[in-house]
C-alpha cells in the first residue's frame, strides 16, 4: 500500500495515473465525511478541552485562560462531588443488577425452546419505548397516593413513600427506571452470546463428567460468555454513566441534590448558568471516565480474543 510522503504518486506512468485518479475519486467520496468529521466531532471535542481551561461565559466578549482552575473548583465544590458520587452510585447499582438479571433471564429463556420469541419480545419492549414518555409513566407509577407501586405494596401491607420526592429514595427510584429500561438490552445481548456456545462443548463436558447444571455453567457457559460479559458490562457502564433524561424530566437533580448527576450538572452549568468554561471542564471529566471504561474493554478483549 502506497502511504507516506516517500511513495508519492507518479503521473508519468500508467499505473501512477491510475493510482492518482483512484485517490482523487476516493477523496471525492470521503471528502464530505472527512470535513464533517472535523467540523462536527473532532473539532468540537478539541474545543471543549480548550474551553475547559478558560472561564468563558456564554455570550461574553472576552475570555481568560485559567489553566486547571476550573478543575480545582470542581473538586472543591460540594455539589460537583455529590454529582459525581451520585453518578457512580447510579452506575454501581444499575450495571450489576441489569447485567445479572439479564444473564439470568437469558439463561432461563435459552434453557427451553417454548415461548423463546415471546419472552425476547416482551423483555426488549421497554428498550424501544421512548424513555421520556415512559419516565412520565413511571412518575405516575411512583405517585404516593394513586401510583401503582404504592397500591401494590399496600396489598401486602407495606406503606410506600413518595419515591421521587424523598431524598433517600429518589436516586433508587431512578435506578429502578434505568434497570427496567435496560434489562431487555442486556438480555438480548446475552441470548446472542449463549446461542453462540457450540452444543458440542456441553456434550463433551457431559461425557467428561460435568453433567449437572452448576458444573455445566461453571465449566462451559461462564468461560465461553467471558467476552460477551465484558462487552455487556462496558456498554451498560457507558450507557448508565450517561444518565440524563430521567433526571432532567422528573427530578431536576433534586430533592436536595440527591439525584444530581454528572451530565445534568454539565447541562445546568453550561446552559442555565452559562458558565460554559466550567461546563466544558465537567464534560472533559465525563469523557475521561467513558474513555477509561472503553479502554478496559479493549484491553480485556485483546487478551482473551484467542478463542476461535
Amino acid at each position, binding site marked *: 500500500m502506497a502511504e507516506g510522503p516517500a511513495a508519492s504518486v507518479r503521473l508519468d506512468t500508467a499505473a501512477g495515473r491510475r493510482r492518482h485518479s483512484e485517490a482523487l475519486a476516493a477523496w471525492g467520496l470521503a471528502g464530505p465525511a472527512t470535513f464533517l468529521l472535523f467540523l462536527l*466531532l473532532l473539532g468540537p471535542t478539541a474545543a471543549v478541552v480548550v*474551553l475547559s481551561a478558560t472561564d468563558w461565559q456564554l455570550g461574553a466578549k472576552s475570555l481568560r485562560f485559567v489553566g486547571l482552575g476550573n478543575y480545582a473548583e470542581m473538586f472543591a465544590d460540594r455539589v460537583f462531588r455529590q454529582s459525581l458520587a451520585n453518578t457512580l452510585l447510579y452506575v454501581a447499582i444499575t450495571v450489576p443488577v441489569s447485567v445479572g438479571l439479564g444473564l439470568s433471564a437469558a439463561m432461563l429463556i435459552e434453557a427451553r425452546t417454548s415461548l423463546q420469541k415471546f419472552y425476547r419480545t416482551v423483555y426488549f419492549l421497554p428498550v424501544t419505548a421512548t424513555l421520556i414518555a415512559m419516565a*412520565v409513566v413511571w412518575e405516575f407509577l411512583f405517585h404516593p397516593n394513586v401510583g401503582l407501586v404504592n397500591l401494590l405494596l399496600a396489598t401486602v401491607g407495606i406503606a410506600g413513600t413518595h419515591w421521587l420526592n424523598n431524598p433517600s429514595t429518589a436516586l433508587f427510584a431512578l435506578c429502578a427506571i434505568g434497570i*427496567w429500561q435496560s434489562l431487555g438490552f442486556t438480555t438480548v445481548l446475552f441470548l446472542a452470546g449463549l446461542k453462540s456456545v457450540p452444543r458440542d462443548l456441553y456434550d463433551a463436558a457431559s461425557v467428561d463428567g460435568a453433567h449437572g447444571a452448576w458444573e455445566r455453567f461453571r465449566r462451559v457457559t461462564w468461560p465461553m460468555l467471558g467476552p460477551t460479559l465484558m462487552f455487556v458490562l462496558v456498554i451498560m457502564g457507558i450507557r448508565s454513566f450517561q444518565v440524563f433524561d430521567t433526571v432532567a424530566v422528573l427530578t431536576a437533580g433534586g430533592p436536595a441534590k440527591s439525584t444530581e448527576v454528572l451530565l445534568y450538572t454539565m447541562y445546568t452549568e453550561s446552559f442555565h448558568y452559562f458558565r460554559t468554561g466550567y461546563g466544558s471542564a465537567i464534560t472533559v471529566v465525563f469523557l475521561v471516565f467513558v474513555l477509561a471504561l472503553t479502554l478496559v474493554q479493549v484491553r480485556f478483549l485483546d487478551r482473551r480474543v484467542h478463542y476461535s
Partner: protein
Amino acid sequence: MTRGGLAFAVLRHVLLLAGAAVMLAPFVWMVATSFKPPQEIFAGELSLLPRQWHAVENYHQAFTKVPMLRYLANGLFVTSAIFALQVLVAVPCAYALAKLEFRGRTLLFTLTLFGLLIPAHVPAIPLYIMLWKAGLLNTYAALVVPFVISVFGIFLMRQFFKAIPDELIHAARLDGLSEFAIVWRIMVPAAMPALISFGIFSVVAHWNDYFWPLLVINSRELAPPPLGVAYFRNEEAGHDFGPLMAGAVIITAPLVVAFLFAQRRFIEGMTMTGLK
C-alpha cells in the same frame, strides 16, 4: 435435551412470566389509565378496566392541549432527514475506506475509530455555540445538522463493504461505471441488511433523543416527541393523569408498533451485535 423435566419447565415459565409482568406493567397501566376518568384514577384502586370509559376525552385533550401530532410529525421529519443525510455522507466514505487505495486512508480510518469513542454529549457545548453564531438555533437545521456525520455508520458500512468481493467492482469498472455510480448502484443494494440495521439504529436513537432538542429548541412547533412529552407534562403539572397517559401512549406507539412488526431487525439494529 430435557434436563430437570417438568418441574423445571414450569419453574422457568413462572420466573420468566413474573419478569415479563414487571416489564409490561408500566405499559398496561399506562394504557388502562388513559381510558379512565379522573375520579377513578384518584380513587386509588387496583383495577384495570375503567367503569366509565373516558378514552375519548383523555385522548382529545392530549391531542389538543399540545400539538401532539405535530410532535410526531417533527420526529418523523427530523429522523428521516438525519438518516438520509447520514447515508449520503457515510456510505461513499465507507466505500472509499473499504475498497479504494489512497494516501491517508489509514489515518482517516483511525480518526473514525477515535470518533467512535466520543460520546454524543461531549461536543455539545461548542456545537451549540457554532449554531448560535450561525443564527440557526431553534430551527430544524439545529436538530439535524450536528448528526449528519455518523462515525458508527461509516464503520458499519465499511465492515460490510469489505466483505463484498472485489470482482464485482472490477466488473463494474469494466462496464464503465464511475466510482460514484458503483457506490450507489452496486454496493448499496448488496449491503441492504447493514443499511437497514444502520437505519433502525439511527432512527431510534434520534427519535428518542431528549438532550439535544432540549438545548437547541424552545418553540412548540419544532419539538420532537421527547421534548413534546416534557412540555405536555409541564402543562399537566401532575394532575391530569388521564390525558398525560394518553399522551404517553401516542408518543410511544409508533416505535413500539414498528418494533412488533420487525422484531429481529430492531433488536439487531439497536444492539448492533455485529459491533465487536
